[in-house]
C-alpha cells in the first residue's frame, strides 16, 4: 500500500502548483525536489518492490520446512528444503498435483488452441465472405461479448448436469471453446492482415477456398492468432469459479481448484501450508516464463490498444 500513497504524491501537489502568487517559488522548489531523477526512480523502485515482494516471499517460503516457515522471518533462509518440498508436492496423495497440472494444461492449452482456431475461422469467414444475414449474425456475436460469463455459470451447470457432463473434462472444455470476443478480434485482424487482393490472385491461380485459408490466410493471421490465444489461455488458466462449480472429482481438478482445496484445510492441518506454497510456486513459474517470453504479444495487445 505504501507504494500507492507514494505514487499519488505528485497529484496531491497539483493544488499547490495551480495556485498563483507567493506560492509560485515554493512550487518551483517542491516540483524540483519531487521530480529529481532520484525521487522518480526511488518511487518506481518502491513500486517494483511492492509488486515483486509477494512472489519473492513465495520463493523463500518454498525452501523451508514447516517448522522454519513459522520460526524464521519471511525473507531469511531456514534449512534448505526446496527439493524435499518439491518432492512432497509432486508425490503427495499418489502424485495428484501432477495430475492437476496436466489437467490445467489440457483445459488451457488444448481448450484455447481449439477455441482460437474456431474464432479465427469464424472471424475470417465474417470478413472475407458474403452471405445472407451476415451482419445480424455478427450482432449476435457482439451480444455474446457483453454477457459476463461468471453470471451464466449456474444455468450452465444445471444444463451440463442434465446432459451428464458435469464432472467430466467436457464441463470445462466445452465452455472454453466459445469466445465471442475472439471472433470479433479475429474479424478485425483478418481485415487488417489479409489483403483481399492476395486471395483473389490465389483464386485466379486455382487455389480452393480451404487451401486458401490454410496456406495463405492462416500464416498471415499468426500474430492475431497468438494474441487471441494468449488472452483465452490466461482466462482459462485463471478460471476458478467455473471449475469450482463444475467439478467434484478431484482427479479432474485444475491446479487452481486443487490448491484451493489444500488451502482450505491448512487451518486444521498446518502441514498443508508447505504443500500450498510449493504447489503455488510450481504453478506460477511456467506462467512467468511464458509471459516474459511472449512479451511481444501481450505488450502489443495492450499497448496499441491504448493508443487512442
Amino acid at each position, binding site marked *: 500500500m505504501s507504494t500507492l500513497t507514494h505514487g499519488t504524491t505528485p497529484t496531491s501537489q497539483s493544488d499547490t502548483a495551480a495556485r498563483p502568487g507567493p506560492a509560485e517559488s515554493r512550487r518551483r522548489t517542491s516540483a524540483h525536489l519531487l521530480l529529481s531523477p532520484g525521487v522518480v526512480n526511488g518511487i518506481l523502485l518502491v513500486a517494483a518492490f511492492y509488486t515483486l515482494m509477494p512472489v519473492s516471499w513465495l520463493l523463500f517460503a518454498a525452501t523451508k520446512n514447516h517448522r522454519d516457515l513459522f520460526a524464521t522471518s519471511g525473507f531469511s533462509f531456514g534449512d534448505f528444503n526446496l527439493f524435499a518440498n518439491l518432492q512432497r508436492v509432486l508425490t503427495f496423495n499418489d502424485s495428484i498435483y501432477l495430475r492437476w497440472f496436466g489437467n490445467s494444461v489440457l483445459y488451457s492449452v488444448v481448450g484455447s488452441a481449439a477455441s482460437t482456431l474456431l474464432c479465427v475461422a469464424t472471424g475470417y469467414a465474417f470478413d472475407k465472405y458474403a452471405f445472407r444475414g451476415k451482419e445480424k449474425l455478427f450482432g449476435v456475436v457482439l451480444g455474446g461479448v457483453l454477457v459476463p460469463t461468471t453470471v451464466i455459470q449456474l444455468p450452465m451447470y444445471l444444463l451440463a448436469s442434465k446432459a451428464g457432463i458435469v464432472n467430466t473434462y467436457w464441463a470445462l472444455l466445452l465452455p472454453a471453446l466459445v469466445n465471442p470476443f475472439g471472433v470479433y478480434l479475429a474479424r478485425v485482424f483478418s481485415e487488417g492482415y489479409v489483403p483481399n487482393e492476395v486471395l483473389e490472385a490465389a483464386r485466379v491461380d486455382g487455389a480452393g477456398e480451404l487451401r486458401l485459408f490454410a496456406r495463405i490466410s492462416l500464416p498471415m493471421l499468426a500474430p492475431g492468432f497468438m494474441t487471441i490465444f494468449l488472452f483465452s489461455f490466461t482466462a482459462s488458466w485463471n478460471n476458478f469459479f467455473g471449475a469450482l462449480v463444475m467439478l467434484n472429482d478431484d482427479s479432474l481438478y485444475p491446479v487452481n481448484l486443487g490448491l484451493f482445496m489444500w488451502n482450505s484445510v491448512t487451518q486444521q492441518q498446518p502441514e498443508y501450508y508447505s504443500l500450498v506454497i510449493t504447489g503455488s510456486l510450481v504453478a506460477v513459474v511456467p506462467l512467468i516464463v511464458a509471459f516474459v517470453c511472449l512479451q511481444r504479444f501481450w505488450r502489443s495487445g495492450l499497448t496499441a490498444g491504448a*493508443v487512442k
Partner: protein
Amino acid sequence: MALPSARPASRQAMRRRPPAKAPAKAPVKALAKAPAKAPAQAPAPGAARLRRSQRRTAALFIVPFFVLFTVVMVAPIGYALWMSLFQEQSSGLGFGGAQRVFSGLDNYTDALSDDGFRSSFAHIALYCALYIPVMIGGSLALALLVDSALARAKRFFQLALFLPHAIPGLIASIIWIYLYTPGLSPVLDWIGALGGSWDFYRDDHVLASMVNLCAWQWTGYNMVIFYAALQAVPREVIEAAVVDGAGALRTALRIKVPMIASAVVMTVLFTCVGAIQIFTEPKLLNQRGAPAIDTEWSPTLFIWKAGFVRHDYGLAAAASLLLAALGIALSYLVTRLGNRWKAATS
C-alpha cells in the same frame, strides 16, 4: 474478468487496420483488377460456382462456432430465464418432495428485496469507491513516472510492475492471505519492528486488505495501458508546453493526463464490469475467517450460495439475470463511450 483483459487488443486491432491495409492495397490491386474485370463482361458459370463454393466454405467455418455458441451461451441464458419464473414448493408435510410451481416475477422481487442481495451491491459500490481511486490513481502516477524523461530502466519497471498479472487470481489471493496471517507474514513482522500493529482481518481493515490484493494484481496491467497511451501523445505538444515554460509536473497533469482521458475512463468502466463479478478474493477471505466478509458478500457469492448451498435455483437464476443485466448495461456504456471517442478523435 475476461472483459478487461480483452479490451485493449480490440482497439489495437482497429488501429492496426489502416496501416496494414494501405500499403498492401495499391500494388496488388493493379494485378487483381485485370482478371476481375474479364468475367464481368460475360457472367460465366465459373463465377456462380465460385460464389457457391465460397458460401459453402463460409458455412463450414461459421457453423461449428454458432452451434457451440448456442449450446454454451444462448441455451443457459434461456434456461435461466425459464427457471427464474418457477419456485420450489414443498407440498403438505414435506413428504412427496418439492414441486415446481410457476411464480411469475416472484423470484425477481424476492432477490431485489433480499437484504443479502441488496447489501452485496452496497459492498461492491463501497469496494469500487475505495479501489478505483487507489488503483487508477496509482497506475496513472506510475505511468507518468515511467514516461518521464527521468526514469531509468523503463523496460525493467514495466515488466516488474506487470508481473502480478501473470499470477492467477486464486494464487495471488492465497499469497496475500498468507502475507496477512500472523506468524507467517513478513509484512506483519516489519510493522511490528516499526512498533506498530495491524490486523488485516479486522472488520474495519478487511476492505482495505481486499483492495490491496486487487490493486496488486491490476495496477501494473493498467499502468502498461496508460504508458502506451502516453507514448502516443505527440511529442510536439509536450515540447510546446515546455517551451511555454511549463514544468514537468504541470506538463504531466495539464497536458498528458487530459490527452489520455479516454483510456482512463474506459479502464474505469471495465474495472467496474470486473468488480461486479468479484468472487475469488472475497471467497478466500471468507474462508480464512474474516468476519466482515460473509458468505453473501458479493453478488456472485450470493448467487453461489443461493444455487449451491440453499439449492434455490429460481432465486439464483433471477439474481444471475439481474447481475447480467447490470453487466450488459455497463458493457454497453463502455462500448458506446468508446465509439464516441473513436468518432471524436479520428
